[in-house]
């Protein structure tokens, strides 16, 4: 870019022009003056020579007889010449004959000769030698010329010689020229000055004023008035400049508008981002918050300008409650994108805490220089909770599967043990002592069966015998039991909703659950406290369902037990539903109570929610789906063992456990039935094909080697529609309850079964109308 040197045009341009004109003028005049002076001198010399010649000629007429008067008159013509300062004609006696000062006439030359003239030259001239002299100032030419005046009286040859003295002064010309030069120079200076003033005015009006408006407009532009324009007229350079300026200003305005538009768009974009955004400078001072960030931090964008990020964005670990390292610091140090640690909690200005997920990224320019940090985060509290719930439920499912599998096998063995203990007891009918041993063993086995059932209750996904119940009724029935279960220091208070909805559940399991929860509450209040039992109708909406993925939106009956006990910490809450997890001293708890509660709730498509605060208490909410059936129906209680129903029908027993297969055969044979045995589905189908008189298929559900009990039942009923089906299982996998096997689920006998259970169920199935 060429550098711009500038002067004040208005003043300097005319001044420099004036100066240069004067310098040139002065130079020209000085040259001219020398020439003129020289010419004047030459002219003066010429004139003096000419006059001398003329005057000598006139004087010489004296010798031809012309009178002195006439010569004097002729000379007088020269007197009027302003250049002739002195004109003297003297005779040989040195007397003045003719003088341009009349008074000199007749006098001796040495009396009248003006001092600046030379007497010596006069003498020389009298001797016939001409002298021409120039004075020191070169203003006078004086000639002293010998003149022949005539013959001397009485002599023929000898001429009378006179002298003509002419003092020719040409200083007038020189002075005149000097004066003229002076006058003219003065006039020129005056005219030039006028012209320059005019130029000044011209420059002022046609250059400086437009330039000033240009300057003014530039200033306006610089100060942000982008609409600043210059009125332009004409086609001069400044007009072109002004047009270019206008063009530039328009372009700038356009570009700026575009930038502003873009900035506005970016601003709106930033505001519209669903996540919170915080922008900081390289010193981690906040520059901007978007509305989501404002909401989450509780700060206003205007308030936080240049505040340290740590003040606006305090984060800490959800579990340890320790301050989390500022991610911006790391971003600034390393220049990389940094994600937040899991379980980061943001505490807002108002103290509200949000689970957040975020990332911080450096804002870099083209050179890689970090200009600031952009922090993007979102409130994942809901998502976190949802994920936690999902994770927990998946874990519980897995635990259920595992424990169910173990329990199932265990159950089968227990079934064999109790069965044969029963046989043994019958066999030792008269021997009292061994019978007692068998009873003890049987009792221990029953306790095992009970434990196994509890474990299966947790893991089982299909309800057993469901009834439409009013939870209030169940609670009233349990009131005595609950009050006995808790210590006298615990005060139990009921808040039972009047028009409580009904729910479909197994009342026994419900009661077990309530007792379990009451006992837990008691254990949480070793020094006593309050236990509130509350029922109400709840409508869990879609939002709640989103937060709790294991819940479907709908109407629920809520059963809530709240205690004022020691509460639970987060870790305990995390594991509470796991089987065999207990906080009670060794030997006091089985660790299956809450697992059973969980299994119960899940089985009846319910939902459980625990809220606990260490040192404050715990509140357990159970939600059971509202039943559309109006009345709760009592199922007829089962008969006593002594009146076991018998029969003579033919029954095909299928079980992969040979011991259980034989036990079932013994039971059924004792009850009068004819039996066939099969160890798997293929065998069973074979037998069914061979033996036409089989009335009932009694099959285990879970069998290795492909086909399970349901599938077997399905195939068998397809070929033999009159065949009755009874299935038995320690537990039932979710898959079996789907895929069209539901009709068989109604005829499911839980393992391990006692002889009485089997007798009753076989009889009931056989007695049912043969339509199914």
């Amino acid at each position, binding site marked *: 870019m060429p550098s711009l040197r500038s002067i004040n045009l208005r003043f300097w341009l005319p001044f420099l022009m004036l100066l240069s004109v004067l310098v040139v003028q002065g130079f*020209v*005049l000085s*040259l*001219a003056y020398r*020439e*003129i002076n020289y*010419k004047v001198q030459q002219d003066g010399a010429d004139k003096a020579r000419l006059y001398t010649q003329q005057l000598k000629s006139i004087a010489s007429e004296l010798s031809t007889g012309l009178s002195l*008067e006439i010569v*004097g*008159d002729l000379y*007088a*013509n020269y*007197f*009027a010449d*302003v250049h002739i300062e002195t004109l003297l004609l003297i005779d040989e006696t040195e007397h003045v004959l*003719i003088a*341009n*000062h*009349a*008074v000199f*006439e*007749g*006098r001796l030359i040495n009396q009248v000769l003006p001092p600046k003239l030379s007497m010596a030259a006069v003498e020389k001239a009298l001797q016939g030698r001409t002298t021409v002299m120039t004075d020191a100032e070169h203003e006078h030419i004086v000639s002293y010329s010998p003149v022949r005046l005539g013959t001397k009286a009485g002599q023929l040859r000898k001429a009378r010689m006179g002298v003509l003295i002419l003092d020719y002064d040409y200083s*007038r*010309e020189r*002075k*005149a*020229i000097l*004066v*003229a*030069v002076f*006058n*003219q120079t003065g006039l020129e200076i005056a005219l030039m000055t006028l012209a320059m003033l005019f130029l000044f005015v011209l420059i002022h009006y046609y250059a400086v004023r437009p330039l000033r408006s240009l300057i003014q407009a530039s200033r306006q532009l610089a100060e942000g008035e982008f609409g600043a324009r210059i009125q332009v007229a004409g086609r001069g350079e400044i007009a072109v400049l002004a047009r270019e300026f206008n063009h530039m200003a328009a372009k700038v305005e356009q570009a700026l508008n575009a930038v502003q538009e873009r900035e506005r768009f970016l601003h709106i974009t930033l505001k519209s981002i669903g996540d919170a955004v915080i922008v900081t400078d390289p010193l981690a001072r906040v520059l901007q918050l978007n509305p989501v960030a404002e909401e989450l931090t509780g700060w206003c964008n205007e308030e936080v300008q240049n505040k340290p990020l740590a003040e606006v964005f305090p984060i800490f670990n959800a579990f340890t409650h320790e301050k989390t390292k500022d991610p911006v610091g790391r971003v600034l140090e390393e220049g990389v994108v940094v994600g937040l640690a899991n379980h980061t909690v943001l505490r807002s200005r108002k103290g509200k805490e949000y689970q957040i997920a975020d990332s911080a990224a450096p804002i870099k320019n083209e050179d890689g220089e970090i200009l600031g940090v952009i922090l993007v985060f979102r409130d994942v509290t809901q998502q976190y909770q949802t994920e936690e719930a999902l994770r927990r439920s998946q874990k519980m499912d897995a635990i259920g599967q595992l424990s169910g599998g173990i329990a199932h096998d265990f159950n089968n063995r227990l079934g064999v043990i109790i069965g044969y203990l029963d046989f043994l007891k019958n066999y030792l009918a008269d021997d009292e002592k061994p019978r007692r041993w068998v009873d003890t063993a049987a009792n221990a086995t029953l306790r095992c069966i009970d434990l196994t059932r509890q474990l299966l209750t947790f893991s089982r996904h299909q309800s057993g015998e469901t009834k439409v119940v009013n939870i209030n009724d169940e609670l009233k029935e349990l009131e005595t039991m609950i009050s006995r279960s808790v210590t006298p220091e615990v005060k139990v208070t009921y808040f039972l909703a009047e028009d409580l909805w009904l729910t479909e559940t197994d009342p026994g399991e419900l009661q077990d659950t309530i007792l379990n929860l009451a006992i837990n509450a008691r254990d949480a209040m070793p020094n006593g406290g309050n236990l509130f039992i509350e029922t109400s109708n709840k409508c869990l909406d879609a939002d709640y369902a989103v937060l709790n993925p294991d819940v479907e939106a709908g109407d629920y009956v809520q059963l809530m037990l709240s205690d004022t006990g020691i509460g639970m910490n987060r870790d305990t809450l995390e594991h509470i539903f796991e089987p065999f997890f207990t906080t009670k001293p060794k030997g006091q708890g089985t660790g299956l109570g809450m697992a059973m509660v969980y299994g119960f709730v899940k089985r009846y498509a319910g939902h459980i929610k625990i809220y606990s605060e260490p040192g404050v208490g715990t509140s357990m909410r159970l939600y059971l789906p509202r039943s559309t059936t109006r009345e709760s129906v009592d199922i007829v209680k089962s008969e006593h063992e002594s009146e076991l129903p018998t029969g003579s029908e033919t029954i095909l027993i299928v079980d992969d456990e040979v011991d259980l297969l034989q036990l079932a055969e013994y039971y059924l044979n004792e009850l009068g039935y004819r039996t066939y045995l099969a160890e798997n589905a293929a065998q069973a189908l074979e037998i069914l094909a061979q033996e036409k008189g089989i009335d009932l298929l009694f099959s285990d559900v879970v069998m290795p080697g492909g086909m399970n009990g349901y599938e077997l039942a399905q195939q068998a009923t397809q070929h033999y529609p009159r065949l009755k089906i009874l299935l038995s299982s320690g537990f039932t996998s979710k898959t079996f309850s789907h895929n069209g096997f539901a009709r068989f689920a109604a005829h499911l006998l839980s393992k391990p079964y006692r002889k009485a259970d089997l007798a009753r169920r076989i009889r009931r199935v056989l007695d049912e109308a043969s339509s199914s």
Partner: protein
Amino acid sequence: MNGFIRNGLPLFVLLLLVACSSDSQNPLRIGSNQWIGYEPVYLARQLGYLSEKDVWLVEMRSASQVLDLLASGNLEGGMLTLDEALTAVQRGVPLEVVAVMDISKGADVLLARPNLELKDLKGRRIGVENTAVGAMLLEEALKAAGLKVADVKLVPLEVSEHEAAYLQGKVDAVVTFEPTRTRLLKQGARQIFDSSRIPNQIIDVLVVRSDLGNGERERQIRTLVSAYFKALDYMHLHMQKAVERIAPRLHLSTDEVLNSYKGIQLASLEMNRNFLMHDKLNKLAGRLLKLMLDSSLIDHRVEYRLANPQYLPDKK
């Protein structure tokens, strides 16, 4: 280029300069013969009241030379006797009187040999300048002597010849005026008649050609007239100093000069106004013309208004 600078450019500038400088090169040329009445003008020049740039004083041998140069245009003005001025006008030279300089009250004289009286002039040679003043004075003198012009022998002489002619014995008497008068009186000549006996008849005037045009010439004339009156003022105040300046120029002693001035009255500004503004000069001129016609000095009469008071300075 060099040629242009050496020749063309100076020529061009010279043309410009000549155009501008004509005035300073052309002073007002005023001619005069020797006469103490005219000396205040020379005094003015000596005192610096008049610059040569404005006025170039030309000293002539005689009034006739002045008249010749006035007629030929080599002079713009002159100091003359009124009759000389009238003569020039009658010859067709356009003149106007811008100032009355002096009135002869004895300065114009008839000098004779010491042994001669006025009545002894009959048959004598009398030198006289061929002018109206000369004629007038001689006529008045002869009239006083009871003689006529025919009774004497007239010898026409230029004023510069008066002294020599007398001393060489070429004439017995001569009609002359200062400073010749004083010099001849020193040589023993005897004054037998003078102008004091014919008051207000012989006056000297400052004339200029009336065809000079306006502008610079008018300024020069005004400068001349006012310088003349300034010199008069100087003389009134410092007569001795003035005379000391005048005397060497005329080759006279101061006493002689002072004596000469007794014969004339230098015309004051007041008198000038009287002469020029109130037609007095014109009347006198008319009378003089008649005399000149009678004396055959002129052969016809041209009516002409001589007086021009416009150059007189304002009253102080």
